[in-house]
Each structure stands twice: as C-alpha cells, then as structure tokens.
C-alpha cells in the first residue's frame, strides 16, 4: 500500500496499525516530499531524519512484536521552532537564540504525541519570537504559501501552515498568542485548533506572552485535530497555567454532528473591518448550517485593544535584556514594537488585564444562549509577501497587526476555536472562518468543524506542485 502526501494523520495511523504499510515507509515518503518541496517553500529550519528513522524502526519492531504503539502510530509531524527539541537550540524564529544551549528534553506536547506513536521529523520556520502575523522572517526568509508561493503563509506559525498545506507532513504543532494558529490556517487553507487557555501544556516551549500564549495542532482534517488534541491534553507541572483537570476525549464526539448545538453568527465588530470575502465565507458556513441568528460579542474591540497592550508589555518584559544588549540582532519589524512595549504605562496593562477578565465573563453570558459562534478568521486572503499595507473599508491599514483583528479578541478571552478553510471557485487562495465555543468546549467547535468538512463546505486540500 502506498500513501501519498495527501494522506491524513488518521489514514496513516490506520494503515500502519493494520500493517498495510510500515512506519518507515511512511516516513521515507515524507522525507522525500520535504526534500522536494521545502527548498522553494521554506517551511523547515531543521529536518531530523536520523532521529525519525530510528523511531520509525522502533515502532515497526513493536508492531511486529504484537504491541499497540498508539492511535497516532507512524504519523510524521513537525513543530514550530519555539518547541524544545532535544539536541537543537530553541530558535523561536530568532537570530539571537541560535547561541542557546541545545535542548536536553523535548517539549511536553512532543513527548505526548510520540507517546501516542507519532514521529517528530523536524522544526519549522516562524515569525521572530512569535510577534508576527505574516510568516515572514528576516533571518530564515519567509515561509511561503503553498497555494500561491508569492503570497504569505500567515504568522507567526507560518512554517507550520506551509508544511501541512504542501503535504510535507499531515500534522504540525504551533502556538497562538493573538491568532498565530488561526491566521496561517486561514491563509494556507487548513484546520487549526486554538484550545482553551490553560488546556494544553506549554511546557518546554519558548514563551512570548504568558497571559495569552496557547499551543495547538494544525492539520488537513478535523479528525486529526481531535486525535492530536486528545493525545496531548492533560495537566503538566511544567506549565503553571495548565489546568489540573481532564475532561476526557473529543474524537468520539465528532460523530454526534451538530444536533442540539445552538450556532450563531458573531455580529457587530465581526461584520466590518475586512474584505467582502471574509464575511462571505462566514455567510456560506452559516447558510450551510441553517444559521441565521446573529449575536453581539460585548467588548470585542476593547478585548482586542487589551490583548494588544498586554502583548506589547509582556513581550517587551520578556526580551528586555536582549533589547538592551543585542538590539541590532532583532528583526526590525519586531524590534520597534518590543521597544515601544517597554515604554507603555503599567496602569494601561493592569487595566487591560481586568478588561480581559470582564470580556471573558461577558462571553460566558453569551454562551448561556449559544453554543458555537461563527466569525471571520482573517480580514482578507493571503497578502503578497512583503506587502506592508492593505485597503480596508477605504482606509490604508498596516498588514502586520491587522491580519489578527478578528482572532485577537477571541484569544484574549481564552476561548477555544477551530479555524476552518473555505474556498471559492475560481480563487487560488482560501480564507478561514473561526468556529468558537465556550471555555473547555473544544468538542463543540470540533463537532461543527467536522460537519462542515463532511459536507464539503470546508476542506484542506494539499496544494498542487
């Protein structure tokens, strides 16, 4: 049996478990695809062929011996290079971190995916220190959009988007502080899950904004998101913000469909400030689901502003010594925002944290009358690499901060979201829709996303070569 680059993680694992193909054969095909596509698309900053081959052979030996190595057996995956990988310095997209000592242990989520049988194959390009929505990187070059390589992959998890959308791997891990999973998912046409704040451990990853940092998976199917999420969820002493609870698995719930779920369109703030295709995608999803009712998310603009200030301030505090000692080694686009962040008053940030909490509490009231909300993921399809501004509502706006205008309030409230990719006939590039649920209801947003995928309203095809 041969599995091509379009195979999903679930398909690969099923075939390996049934012994229709070996983990080593799957891995070798994956490495060939990386070797062929990465030179032009620039997703990987490290490929771990020797480590991955040793692991694949060990899995094949275990299977031959009658063992069950886990639900993700033989699935190649890669991680944004802010995840610790044994033997590599954790770059976080920077030049400065290249002098860090190599990590002596894998990040928690890598350990958990490998405990379920998956195989780490490499580390992925990203915007410097995750302060980015474009996928551009001054040191490693931009990760390119596989569907239109002159266009952005989206950031800051750009390499993760590029690697999965090009079929180099079926699954990637990424981080999302203000939208960095959902923006590349939208621009590259992928399913991406940003879980509830505190639900997946950040242990063993390079931070950005402790108050807002989330980790999650990106894939080409919702079943793969659920399988990866289930394998990774759970408490972890390495992340003080990780909740000490376990709410069971989500994958078995996908089959429930959308029956009983009250789905609404996010109105007001989420109905302007973008190109028409952003709202058309939401409407297409809503029409397919028979959703007509709109709800207003109170304080959405204020929540975005709060996230903006918290990000500036906490990011600047994290990098203060590096800004002082190695200013010229930063990406200029990142440097100036971080220096500015060091200069804003503490009272603004303290108030922003309270607004964040208030927004969250008001969202809980919204979720008493709705289970799932639909909103645009990005204000536009992928801009061209290097593009600095875009026209929105007749005003010229900077691309870099505004690609996250719709994602930023949602992560500010810590809410779980699946970004689902929507395609329009005749258009080369997709655009995403956020499927948002109440805290700890990842099952709700994944059920809706799975329904949309099953009906063909949302899909994540591998970009043709």
């Amino acid at each position, binding site marked *: 049996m041969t599995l091509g680059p379009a195979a999903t993680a679930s398909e690969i694992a099923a075939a390996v478990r049934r012994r229709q193909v070996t983990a080593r054969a799957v891995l070798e095909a994956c490495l060939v695809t990386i070797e062929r596509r990465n030179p032009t698309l620039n997703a990987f900053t490290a490929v771990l062929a020797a480590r991955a081959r040793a692991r694949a052979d060990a899995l094949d030996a275990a299977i031959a011996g009658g063992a069950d190595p886990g639900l993700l057996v033989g699935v190649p995956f890669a991680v944004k290079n802010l995840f610790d990988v044994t033997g590599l310095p954790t770059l976080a997209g920077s030049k400065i971190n290249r002098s860090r000592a190599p990590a002596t242990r894998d990040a928690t989520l890598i350990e958990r995916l490998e405990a379920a049988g998956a195989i780490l194959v490499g580390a992925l390009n990203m915007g410097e220190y995750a302060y980015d929505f474009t996928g551009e990187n001054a040191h490693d070059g931009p990760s390119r959009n596989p569907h239109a390589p002159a266009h952005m992959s989206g950031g800051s998890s750009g390499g993760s988007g590029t690697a999965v959308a090009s079929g180099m791997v079926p699954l990637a891990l990424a981080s999302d502080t203000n939208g960095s999973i959902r923006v590349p998912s939208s621009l590259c046409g992928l399913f991406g899950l940003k879980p*509830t*704040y*505190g639900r997946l451990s950040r242990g063993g990853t390079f931070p950005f904004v402790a*108050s807002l940092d989330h980790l999650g998976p990106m894939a080409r199917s919702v079943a793969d998101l659920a399988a990866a999420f289930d394998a990774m969820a759970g408490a972890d002493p390495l992340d003080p*913000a990780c*909740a000490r609870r376990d709410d069971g698995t989500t994958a078995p719930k996908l089959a429930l469909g959308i029956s009983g779920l009250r789905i609404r369109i996010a109105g007001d703030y989420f109905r302007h400030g973008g190109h028409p295709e952003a709202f058309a995608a939401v409407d297409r999803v809503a029409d397919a689901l028979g959703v007509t009712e709109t709800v207003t998310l109170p*304080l959405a*603009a*204020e929540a975005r*502003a*709060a996230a*903006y*200030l918290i990000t*500036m301030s906490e990011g600047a505090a994290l990098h*203060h010594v590096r*800004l*002082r000692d190695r*200013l010229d080694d930063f990406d*200029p686009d990142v*440097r*100036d*925002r971080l*220096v*500015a*962040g*060091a*200069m*804003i*008053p503490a009272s*603004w940030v*303290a*108030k*922003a*944290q*309270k*607004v*964040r*909490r*208030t927004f*969250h509490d008001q969202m809980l009231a919204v979720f008493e009358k709705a289970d799932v909300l639909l909103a645009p993921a990005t204000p536009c399809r992928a801009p061209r690499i290097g593009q600095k501004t875009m026209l929105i509502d007749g005003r010229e706006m900077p691309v870099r*901060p505004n690609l996250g205008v719709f994602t930023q309030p949602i992560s500010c409230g*810590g809410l779980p979201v699946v970004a689902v990719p929507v395609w329009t006939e005749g258009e080369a590039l997709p655009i995403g829709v956020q499927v948002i649920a*109440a*805290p*700890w*209801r990842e099952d709700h947003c994944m059920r809706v996303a799975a329904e949309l995928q099953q009906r063909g309203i949302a899909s994540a095809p591998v970009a043709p070569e």
Partner: protein
Amino acid sequence: MSGDFDADRLIDAMSELLALPVSPDCRQGIALHLRVARTMADSVLAVELPDEAEPAPVFTP
C-alpha cells in the same frame, strides 16, 4: 485624547530609564507603535469597571 501625545519625549525619558538604546532608524517605528498603543489604551481605559474587578486568568466552563 491621542492627538496631543508627544511620543518623542516619552521615548527620550524611557530610553534613559530603561537603559534601552534608541537609534535614529528605530525612533520613527517606536513612535508609530506608541501612537497605536495610545489608541488601544483609549479603548481599554474607557471601559468602566468596579474597583473589585479581578484580572484572574482562570477559564472554566
């Protein structure tokens, strides 16, 4: 409220206080980001909250 904001004076004062160098090619970008931050702060500061409002980042169903 944001229009009378003099970013250059803030940059000069904070650069010294924080021992953060600000080269001429950085200054314009930093000022731009400070002006955006001021706009964001206007939005945040306008939200009326009781003295008892908490920032606690706990997220539960």
